[in-house]
């Protein structure tokens, strides 16, 4: 990218005083609303409203994210147990994603920022091990592990 186009991009502001990255986050926040409304209104168990998972169609395996949409639908209708049944990893990750989402959105709206959280690296390595184990175990077609499948 040439210097001139870089400068031009930096100068691009939709409203004076609100930089581009703030608008990006604000638009991103607004874009999430219709998606959430769709997940609330339509049960992913019904065919025809959502694209199928390519990973599942190709391999027949449940990935760590399998059951996320069905779980979110149940969560929005107050069925916490059913939501955890579809994907416990998603439900545990939701508060983290929610916090990151607010951290990204709040500065773009109010200019205030939430405190950042520094995770000990061992925690992230632990998360990695947990996700990999979850992925492997939920594909074992034997009882207690079938509980982990969506």
């Amino acid at each position, binding site marked *: 990218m040439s210097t001139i186009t*870089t400068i031009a991009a930096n100068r691009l502001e939709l409203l004076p005083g609100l930089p581009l990255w703030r608008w*990006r986050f604000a638009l991103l926040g607004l874009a999430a609303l219709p998606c959430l409304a769709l997940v609330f209104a339509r049960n992913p168990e019904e065919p025809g409203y959502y694209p199928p998972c390519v990973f599942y169609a190709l391999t027949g395996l449940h990935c*760590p994210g399998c059951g996320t949409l069905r779980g979110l639908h149940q969560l929005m209708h107050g069925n916490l147990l059913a939501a955890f049944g579809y*994907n416990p990893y998603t439900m545990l990750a939701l508060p983290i994603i929610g916090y990151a989402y607010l951290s990204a959105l709040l500065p773009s709206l109010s200019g205030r*920022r939430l405190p*950042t959280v520094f995770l000990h690296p061992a925690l*992230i*390595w632990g998360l990695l091990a947990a996700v990999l184990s979850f992925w492997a175990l939920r594909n074992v077609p034997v009882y207690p592990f079938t509980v982990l499948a969506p």
Partner: protein
Amino acid sequence: MAYDYDDDPIHCATCGSEIEPGARFCANCGAAAQTSPSFTPGYAPGMGYEGGPDYGEPVHVPNHLVWAIAATLCCCVPTGIVAIVYAAQVNGKLAAGDYNGALSASNSAKTWCWVSLGLGVVAAVVWGIVGLTGAI
């Protein structure tokens, strides 16, 4: 930093105005956008921008962990796992004081998050085309 908005604006070391992520020069004063170990966002002297105090670690290097988690959840692509590995390396290297290593791992984590998103979108589009032609 785990829960953080990843696109924390970079500030020019010379004049203190915001620099769009990825830009190599400051749009305000034209100085080269530098990310050297001695340049610590939020603590560089004489910057005078309106940003609040930097919470937690003095040096800010986003690890993109939340995007990596979201990639393992939404994109159905195992490349999100690779992004988590790099996110862990960012915090490990920051804890060890290796700023340049953390920055490099941060960029790798970011790259793999985009790769996840790209593969997810491409796979969905290809699958849609295959499904449509199959239906016809």
